[in-house]
Protein backbone atom coordinates (compact mmCIF):
# COMPACT_ATOMS: atom_id res chain seq x y z
CA UNK A 1 0.00 0.00 0.00
CA UNK A 2 1.33 3.46 -0.86
CA UNK A 3 0.74 6.68 1.06
CA UNK A 4 1.91 10.17 0.15
CA UNK A 5 1.77 13.21 2.37
CA UNK A 6 3.11 16.77 2.42
CA UNK A 7 3.28 18.98 5.49
CA UNK A 8 4.55 22.50 5.94
CA UNK A 9 5.43 23.79 9.38
CA UNK A 10 6.19 27.42 10.22
CA UNK A 11 7.24 28.57 13.64
CA UNK A 12 9.31 31.20 15.38
CA UNK A 13 11.51 31.35 18.46
CA UNK A 14 12.98 34.32 20.33
CA UNK A 15 11.72 37.47 21.95
CA UNK A 16 8.39 38.93 20.83
CA UNK A 17 9.84 41.95 18.99
CA UNK A 18 12.60 40.11 17.21
CA UNK A 19 12.27 36.41 16.55
CA UNK A 20 14.09 33.82 14.44
CA UNK A 21 11.76 31.87 12.19
CA UNK A 22 12.00 28.48 10.50
CA UNK A 23 9.89 27.16 7.64
CA UNK A 24 9.94 23.40 7.19
CA UNK A 25 8.39 21.13 4.56
CA UNK A 26 8.15 17.37 4.93
CA UNK A 27 7.31 15.00 2.07
CA UNK A 28 6.59 11.37 2.79
CA UNK A 29 6.14 8.42 0.48
CA UNK A 30 5.53 5.03 2.08
CA UNK A 31 4.94 1.72 0.33
CA UNK A 32 4.73 -0.96 3.02
CA UNK A 33 4.17 0.25 6.55
CA UNK A 34 4.62 -2.39 9.28
CA UNK A 35 1.21 -3.20 10.72
CA UNK A 36 2.21 -4.40 14.19
CA UNK A 37 5.34 -2.40 15.02
CA UNK A 38 8.82 -3.86 15.22
CA UNK A 39 8.30 -6.39 18.00
CA UNK A 40 11.73 -7.41 19.30
CA UNK A 41 13.57 -6.27 16.18
CA UNK A 42 15.63 -3.14 15.82
CA UNK A 43 16.26 -0.28 13.43
CA UNK A 44 19.56 1.30 12.49
CA UNK A 45 19.88 4.86 11.18
CA UNK A 46 22.94 5.62 9.05
CA UNK A 47 24.24 8.76 7.35
CA UNK A 48 25.25 8.70 3.68
CA UNK A 49 28.82 9.94 3.27
CA UNK A 50 29.57 9.50 -0.43
CA UNK A 51 29.41 13.08 -1.64
CA UNK A 52 32.67 15.02 -1.84
CA UNK A 53 31.35 18.44 -0.82
CA UNK A 54 29.17 17.61 2.19
CA UNK A 55 28.59 15.00 4.85
CA UNK A 56 25.40 13.97 6.56
CA UNK A 57 26.20 15.20 10.05
CA UNK A 58 26.56 12.46 12.72
CA UNK A 59 24.76 14.83 15.14
CA UNK A 60 21.73 14.88 12.84
CA UNK A 61 21.69 11.07 12.60
CA UNK A 62 21.85 10.87 16.41
CA UNK A 63 19.08 13.48 16.75
CA UNK A 64 16.70 11.50 14.50
CA UNK A 65 17.51 8.27 16.37
CA UNK A 66 16.86 9.94 19.74
CA UNK A 67 13.56 11.36 18.45
CA UNK A 68 12.34 7.92 17.41
CA UNK A 69 13.58 6.15 20.56
CA UNK A 70 12.01 8.76 22.85
CA UNK A 71 8.73 8.66 20.91
CA UNK A 72 8.24 4.91 21.30
CA UNK A 73 10.13 2.99 23.99
CA UNK A 74 9.45 -0.32 22.24
CA UNK A 75 11.65 0.65 19.25
CA UNK A 76 15.31 -0.28 19.61
CA UNK A 77 17.49 2.16 17.66
CA UNK A 78 21.07 0.95 17.23
CA UNK A 79 23.67 3.72 17.59
CA UNK A 80 25.31 4.56 14.25
CA UNK A 81 28.95 4.28 15.37
CA UNK A 82 28.23 1.12 17.36
CA UNK A 83 26.73 -0.46 14.23
CA UNK A 84 29.53 0.73 11.92
CA UNK A 85 32.13 -0.74 14.30
CA UNK A 86 30.22 -4.01 14.67
CA UNK A 87 30.07 -4.61 10.89
CA UNK A 88 33.40 -2.99 9.90
CA UNK A 89 34.45 -2.74 7.07
CA UNK A 90 31.13 -3.32 5.26
CA UNK A 91 29.32 -0.03 5.89
CA UNK A 92 32.19 2.43 5.42
CA UNK A 93 31.67 5.16 2.76
CA UNK A 94 33.71 3.06 0.29
CA UNK A 95 31.90 -0.23 0.89
CA UNK A 96 28.36 0.62 2.07
CA UNK A 97 25.56 -0.91 -0.03
CA UNK A 98 23.93 1.65 -2.31
CA UNK A 99 20.85 -0.41 -3.21
CA UNK A 100 18.72 -2.85 -1.18
CA UNK A 101 19.68 -5.72 -3.51
CA UNK A 102 23.32 -5.30 -2.40
CA UNK A 103 22.32 -6.62 1.04
CA UNK A 104 21.83 -10.09 -0.43
CA UNK A 105 25.45 -10.17 -1.61
CA UNK A 106 26.67 -8.88 1.74
CA UNK A 107 24.77 -11.54 3.67
CA UNK A 108 26.47 -14.30 1.67
CA UNK A 109 29.40 -13.75 4.01
CA UNK A 110 28.80 -15.84 7.07
CA UNK A 111 30.25 -13.48 9.73
CA UNK A 112 28.14 -10.59 8.38
CA UNK A 113 24.95 -12.67 8.25
CA UNK A 114 25.54 -13.90 11.82
CA UNK A 115 26.14 -10.36 13.11
CA UNK A 116 23.01 -9.02 11.41
CA UNK A 117 20.96 -11.84 12.89
CA UNK A 118 22.37 -11.08 16.34
CA UNK A 119 21.57 -7.38 15.99
CA UNK A 120 18.00 -8.21 14.79
CA UNK A 121 18.05 -5.44 12.20
CA UNK A 122 14.60 -5.18 10.59
CA UNK A 123 14.84 -1.71 9.06
CA UNK A 124 17.84 0.26 7.87
CA UNK A 125 17.25 3.98 7.38
CA UNK A 126 19.69 6.00 5.29
CA UNK A 127 19.81 9.74 5.87
CA UNK A 128 21.34 11.88 3.13
CA UNK A 129 21.74 15.66 3.23
CA UNK A 130 23.18 18.50 5.24
CA UNK A 131 22.51 21.91 6.74
CA UNK A 132 24.26 24.78 4.95
CA UNK A 133 24.71 28.44 5.78
CA UNK A 134 23.37 30.22 2.72
CA UNK A 135 23.99 33.91 3.29
CA UNK A 136 24.69 36.67 5.77
CA UNK A 137 24.68 40.44 6.07
CA UNK A 138 25.17 43.25 8.58
CA UNK A 139 28.17 44.46 10.53
CA UNK A 140 29.29 44.67 14.11
CA UNK A 141 32.09 46.58 15.79
CA UNK A 142 33.47 45.58 19.17
CA UNK A 143 35.73 47.57 21.50
CA UNK A 144 36.42 47.71 25.24
CA UNK A 145 33.09 49.52 25.65
CA UNK A 146 31.15 46.62 24.11
CA UNK A 147 29.74 45.65 20.72
CA UNK A 148 27.43 47.64 18.47
CA UNK A 149 25.77 46.58 15.25
CA UNK A 150 23.50 43.99 13.74
CA UNK A 151 24.12 40.73 11.90
CA UNK A 152 21.81 38.30 10.19
CA UNK A 153 22.34 35.00 8.36
CA UNK A 154 20.28 32.12 7.06
CA UNK A 155 20.55 28.32 7.03
CA UNK A 156 19.02 25.76 4.66
CA UNK A 157 18.57 22.12 5.69
CA UNK A 158 17.75 19.43 3.14
CA UNK A 159 17.57 15.76 4.08
CA UNK A 160 16.16 12.59 2.59
CA UNK A 161 15.50 9.40 4.51
CA UNK A 162 15.28 6.12 2.63
CA UNK A 163 13.86 3.13 4.51
CA UNK A 164 15.09 -0.35 3.62
CA UNK A 165 13.30 -3.48 4.76
CA UNK A 166 16.15 -5.79 5.73
CA UNK A 167 14.07 -8.97 5.50
CA UNK A 168 12.60 -8.33 2.05
CA UNK A 169 15.70 -6.43 0.78
CA UNK A 170 13.56 -3.64 -0.67
CA UNK A 171 13.08 0.09 -0.18
CA UNK A 172 9.76 0.65 1.58
CA UNK A 173 9.64 4.40 2.07
CA UNK A 174 11.12 7.83 1.46
CA UNK A 175 10.83 10.96 3.59
CA UNK A 176 12.15 14.34 2.43
CA UNK A 177 12.45 17.37 4.63
CA UNK A 178 13.66 20.87 3.96
CA UNK A 179 13.87 23.73 6.44
CA UNK A 180 14.96 27.35 6.05
CA UNK A 181 15.56 29.81 8.84
CA UNK A 182 16.92 33.28 9.46
CA UNK A 183 19.06 33.98 12.54
CA UNK A 184 19.77 37.44 13.98
CA UNK A 185 22.34 38.98 16.30
CA UNK A 186 21.65 42.55 17.45
CA UNK A 187 24.34 44.08 19.65
CA UNK A 188 23.99 47.06 21.98
CA UNK A 189 27.02 46.62 24.26
CA UNK A 190 26.26 42.87 24.53
CA UNK A 191 25.52 40.78 21.39
CA UNK A 192 22.27 38.78 21.68
CA UNK A 193 22.21 35.81 19.27
CA UNK A 194 18.71 34.70 18.23
CA UNK A 195 19.40 31.43 16.45
CA UNK A 196 16.85 29.76 14.18
CA UNK A 197 16.83 26.01 15.01
CA UNK A 198 16.95 24.91 11.36
CA UNK A 199 18.63 21.54 11.78
CA UNK A 200 16.56 20.77 14.88
CA UNK A 201 13.35 21.50 12.97
CA UNK A 202 14.45 19.24 10.11
CA UNK A 203 15.28 16.54 12.69
CA UNK A 204 11.83 16.83 14.30
CA UNK A 205 10.12 16.76 10.89
CA UNK A 206 11.88 13.69 9.56
CA UNK A 207 11.88 12.02 13.01
CA UNK A 208 8.09 12.37 13.38
CA UNK A 209 7.45 10.82 9.95
CA UNK A 210 9.81 7.92 10.66
CA UNK A 211 8.25 7.41 14.07
CA UNK A 212 4.79 7.20 12.48
CA UNK A 213 6.17 4.66 10.02
CA UNK A 214 7.87 2.45 12.61
CA UNK A 215 5.65 2.74 15.65
CA UNK A 216 2.58 0.65 16.37
CA UNK A 217 1.38 3.39 18.75
CA UNK A 218 1.14 6.19 16.14
Amino acid sequence: MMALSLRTVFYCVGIPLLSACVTATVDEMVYNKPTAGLGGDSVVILGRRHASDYETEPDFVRCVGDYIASGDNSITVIDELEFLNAVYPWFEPRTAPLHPVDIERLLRQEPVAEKMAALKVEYMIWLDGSTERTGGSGSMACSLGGCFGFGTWSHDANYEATIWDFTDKTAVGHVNTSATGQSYMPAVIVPIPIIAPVQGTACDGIGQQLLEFLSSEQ
Partner: protein
Amino acid sequence: MISVSRVTRLLLAVMLTGLLPGCGPAHVVVEGKFPAPLIEPLPMTLGVWYGDDFAGHEFFDESKSRQESSWIVSTGVAQVQMWNTLLDGMFTKVVQLTRPPSAGQPVANVDAILVPHVEELQYAIPRHTKVKVYEIWMRYRFELLSAGGTPVAEWNMTSYGKTPTGFLQSDQEAVNLAAVMALRDAGANFATNFTRVPAVRNWLQEQGVQTESVSP
Protein backbone atom coordinates in the same frame (compact mmCIF):
# COMPACT_ATOMS: atom_id res chain seq x y z
CA MET B 1 64.72 43.32 45.77
CA ILE B 2 63.47 43.31 42.19
CA SER B 3 63.63 46.62 40.31
CA VAL B 4 60.69 48.02 38.31
CA SER B 5 62.57 47.55 35.00
CA ARG B 6 63.24 43.92 35.90
CA VAL B 7 59.56 43.35 36.66
CA THR B 8 58.69 44.90 33.27
CA ARG B 9 61.21 42.64 31.52
CA LEU B 10 59.82 39.58 33.34
CA LEU B 11 56.25 40.47 32.44
CA LEU B 12 57.29 41.01 28.82
CA ALA B 13 59.07 37.64 28.76
CA VAL B 14 56.01 35.88 30.21
CA MET B 15 53.72 37.57 27.65
CA LEU B 16 56.02 36.64 24.75
CA THR B 17 56.25 33.04 25.99
CA GLY B 18 52.47 32.94 26.03
CA LEU B 19 52.35 34.19 22.47
CA LEU B 20 54.91 31.71 21.13
CA PRO B 21 52.60 28.67 20.86
CA GLY B 22 50.31 30.75 18.61
CA CYS B 23 53.20 31.23 16.19
CA GLY B 24 54.26 27.56 16.08
CA PRO B 25 52.90 24.88 13.75
CA ALA B 26 49.54 23.22 14.45
CA HIS B 27 50.44 19.73 15.67
CA VAL B 28 48.02 16.81 15.50
CA VAL B 29 48.98 13.44 16.98
CA VAL B 30 46.30 11.22 15.46
CA GLU B 31 44.35 9.25 18.07
CA GLY B 32 41.39 6.96 17.53
CA LYS B 33 39.81 3.59 18.14
CA PHE B 34 39.74 1.06 15.33
CA PRO B 35 37.36 -1.90 15.16
CA ALA B 36 38.36 -5.45 14.28
CA PRO B 37 37.15 -6.53 10.82
CA LEU B 38 34.08 -8.76 10.50
CA ILE B 39 35.68 -11.10 8.00
CA GLU B 40 36.58 -14.76 7.60
CA PRO B 41 40.34 -14.90 8.33
CA LEU B 42 42.69 -16.20 5.63
CA PRO B 43 44.28 -19.46 6.86
CA MET B 44 47.88 -18.29 6.91
CA THR B 45 50.49 -16.81 9.22
CA LEU B 46 51.52 -13.33 8.20
CA GLY B 47 54.69 -11.62 9.32
CA VAL B 48 54.47 -7.83 9.35
CA TRP B 49 57.30 -5.32 9.46
CA TYR B 50 56.67 -1.68 10.32
CA GLY B 51 59.71 0.34 9.30
CA ASP B 52 60.73 3.48 11.19
CA ASP B 53 59.30 5.64 8.39
CA PHE B 54 55.92 3.94 8.91
CA ALA B 55 55.78 3.51 12.70
CA GLY B 56 56.94 7.10 13.19
CA HIS B 57 55.14 8.56 10.18
CA GLU B 58 54.79 12.31 10.38
CA PHE B 59 53.57 14.78 7.79
CA PHE B 60 54.86 18.36 7.81
CA ASP B 61 53.35 21.14 5.74
CA GLU B 62 55.05 24.51 5.93
CA SER B 63 52.79 27.57 5.73
CA LYS B 64 52.90 29.51 2.50
CA SER B 65 51.86 32.83 4.00
CA ARG B 66 51.96 34.62 7.36
CA GLN B 67 48.18 34.24 7.70
CA GLU B 68 48.38 30.44 7.62
CA SER B 69 50.04 28.17 10.16
CA SER B 70 52.30 25.24 9.42
CA TRP B 71 50.95 21.77 10.16
CA ILE B 72 52.48 18.61 11.60
CA VAL B 73 50.24 15.53 11.43
CA SER B 74 51.73 12.51 13.25
CA THR B 75 49.97 9.31 12.15
CA GLY B 76 52.60 6.67 13.03
CA VAL B 77 51.17 5.42 16.34
CA ALA B 78 47.60 5.32 14.97
CA GLN B 79 48.82 3.57 11.79
CA VAL B 80 50.41 0.73 13.77
CA GLN B 81 47.35 0.48 16.03
CA MET B 82 44.92 0.29 13.09
CA TRP B 83 46.99 -2.14 10.98
CA ASN B 84 47.63 -4.46 13.95
CA THR B 85 43.88 -4.63 14.66
CA LEU B 86 42.99 -5.13 11.00
CA LEU B 87 45.62 -7.78 10.19
CA ASP B 88 44.85 -9.72 13.39
CA GLY B 89 41.30 -10.12 12.09
CA MET B 90 42.24 -10.84 8.48
CA PHE B 91 44.72 -13.69 9.05
CA THR B 92 44.66 -16.67 11.40
CA LYS B 93 47.98 -15.59 12.91
CA VAL B 94 50.05 -12.40 12.68
CA VAL B 95 53.65 -12.09 13.82
CA GLN B 96 55.23 -8.68 14.24
CA LEU B 97 58.85 -8.92 13.07
CA THR B 98 61.64 -7.47 15.17
CA ARG B 99 64.09 -6.93 12.30
CA PRO B 100 63.56 -5.90 8.68
CA PRO B 101 63.12 -8.78 6.22
CA SER B 102 65.91 -9.41 3.74
CA ALA B 103 66.46 -11.91 0.92
CA GLY B 104 69.29 -13.76 2.63
CA GLN B 105 67.59 -14.22 6.01
CA PRO B 106 64.41 -16.35 5.93
CA VAL B 107 61.85 -15.77 8.69
CA ALA B 108 60.72 -18.98 10.41
CA ASN B 109 57.06 -19.93 10.93
CA VAL B 110 55.46 -17.39 8.63
CA ASP B 111 53.88 -17.88 5.19
CA ALA B 112 54.46 -14.34 3.96
CA ILE B 113 55.68 -10.94 5.12
CA LEU B 114 53.82 -7.66 4.62
CA VAL B 115 55.70 -4.35 4.62
CA PRO B 116 53.45 -1.26 4.47
CA HIS B 117 54.71 2.23 3.57
CA VAL B 118 52.93 5.62 3.65
CA GLU B 119 54.09 7.25 0.42
CA GLU B 120 52.06 10.44 0.54
CA LEU B 121 49.63 12.36 2.76
CA GLN B 122 47.61 15.42 1.83
CA TYR B 123 45.15 17.41 3.90
CA ALA B 124 42.65 20.19 3.26
CA ILE B 125 40.81 22.39 5.73
CA PRO B 126 37.80 24.62 4.93
CA ARG B 127 40.08 27.72 4.79
CA HIS B 128 41.90 26.12 1.82
CA THR B 129 38.93 24.79 -0.15
CA LYS B 130 35.90 26.90 0.93
CA VAL B 131 34.08 23.57 1.29
CA LYS B 132 32.81 22.79 4.78
CA VAL B 133 34.69 19.54 5.22
CA TYR B 134 38.14 18.65 6.54
CA GLU B 135 39.88 16.08 4.37
CA ILE B 136 42.87 13.71 4.61
CA TRP B 137 44.12 11.68 1.67
CA MET B 138 46.84 9.01 1.91
CA ARG B 139 48.69 6.83 -0.56
CA TYR B 140 50.17 3.56 0.65
CA ARG B 141 52.62 1.18 -0.98
CA PHE B 142 52.62 -2.45 0.12
CA GLU B 143 55.28 -5.09 -0.37
CA LEU B 144 54.36 -8.74 0.10
CA LEU B 145 57.41 -10.97 0.47
CA SER B 146 57.81 -14.71 0.83
CA ALA B 147 59.15 -16.09 4.13
CA GLY B 148 62.53 -16.19 2.41
CA GLY B 149 62.35 -12.45 1.69
CA THR B 150 61.80 -12.63 -2.08
CA PRO B 151 59.19 -10.23 -3.55
CA VAL B 152 55.72 -11.70 -4.18
CA ALA B 153 53.72 -8.56 -4.92
CA GLU B 154 53.96 -4.79 -4.72
CA TRP B 155 50.97 -2.46 -5.09
CA ASN B 156 49.65 1.00 -4.24
CA MET B 157 46.44 1.84 -2.42
CA THR B 158 44.74 5.13 -1.56
CA SER B 159 42.51 6.09 1.32
CA TYR B 160 40.39 9.13 2.04
CA GLY B 161 38.69 10.53 5.10
CA LYS B 162 36.61 13.60 5.70
CA THR B 163 34.60 15.16 8.47
CA PRO B 164 32.15 18.07 8.43
CA THR B 165 32.76 21.34 10.23
CA GLY B 166 31.33 21.25 13.73
CA PHE B 167 30.25 23.83 16.28
CA LEU B 168 33.12 24.70 18.65
CA GLN B 169 35.39 22.20 16.90
CA SER B 170 39.03 23.19 16.45
CA ASP B 171 40.99 22.61 13.24
CA GLN B 172 43.16 20.10 15.12
CA GLU B 173 40.19 18.06 16.38
CA ALA B 174 38.65 17.99 12.89
CA VAL B 175 41.92 17.00 11.17
CA ASN B 176 42.32 14.19 13.74
CA LEU B 177 38.80 12.95 12.98
CA ALA B 178 39.42 13.12 9.22
CA ALA B 179 42.68 11.16 9.71
CA VAL B 180 40.84 8.49 11.73
CA MET B 181 38.28 8.24 8.91
CA ALA B 182 41.12 7.93 6.37
CA LEU B 183 42.68 5.12 8.42
CA ARG B 184 39.33 3.32 8.64
CA ASP B 185 39.00 3.72 4.88
CA ALA B 186 42.51 2.32 4.39
CA GLY B 187 41.54 -0.72 6.44
CA ALA B 188 38.29 -1.16 4.49
CA ASN B 189 40.09 -0.85 1.16
CA PHE B 190 42.80 -3.33 2.17
CA ALA B 191 40.41 -5.87 3.71
CA THR B 192 38.08 -5.94 0.70
CA ASN B 193 40.74 -5.83 -2.03
CA PHE B 194 43.75 -7.75 -0.70
CA THR B 195 42.80 -11.03 -2.40
CA ARG B 196 41.96 -9.18 -5.63
CA VAL B 197 45.50 -7.88 -6.21
CA PRO B 198 46.46 -10.12 -9.18
CA ALA B 199 49.93 -11.07 -7.92
CA VAL B 200 48.59 -11.76 -4.42
CA ARG B 201 45.68 -13.84 -5.78
CA ASN B 202 48.03 -15.94 -7.93
CA TRP B 203 50.41 -16.49 -5.03
CA LEU B 204 47.57 -17.50 -2.69
CA GLN B 205 46.32 -19.99 -5.31
CA GLU B 206 49.82 -21.43 -5.62
CA GLN B 207 49.90 -21.85 -1.84
CA GLY B 208 46.52 -23.59 -1.93
CA VAL B 209 44.85 -20.87 0.17
CA GLN B 210 41.10 -20.66 -0.46
CA THR B 211 39.99 -17.06 -1.09
CA GLU B 212 36.31 -16.20 -0.88
CA SER B 213 35.11 -13.25 -2.89
CA VAL B 214 34.75 -10.33 -0.49
CA SER B 215 33.33 -7.73 -2.83
CA PRO B 216 31.68 -4.75 -1.12
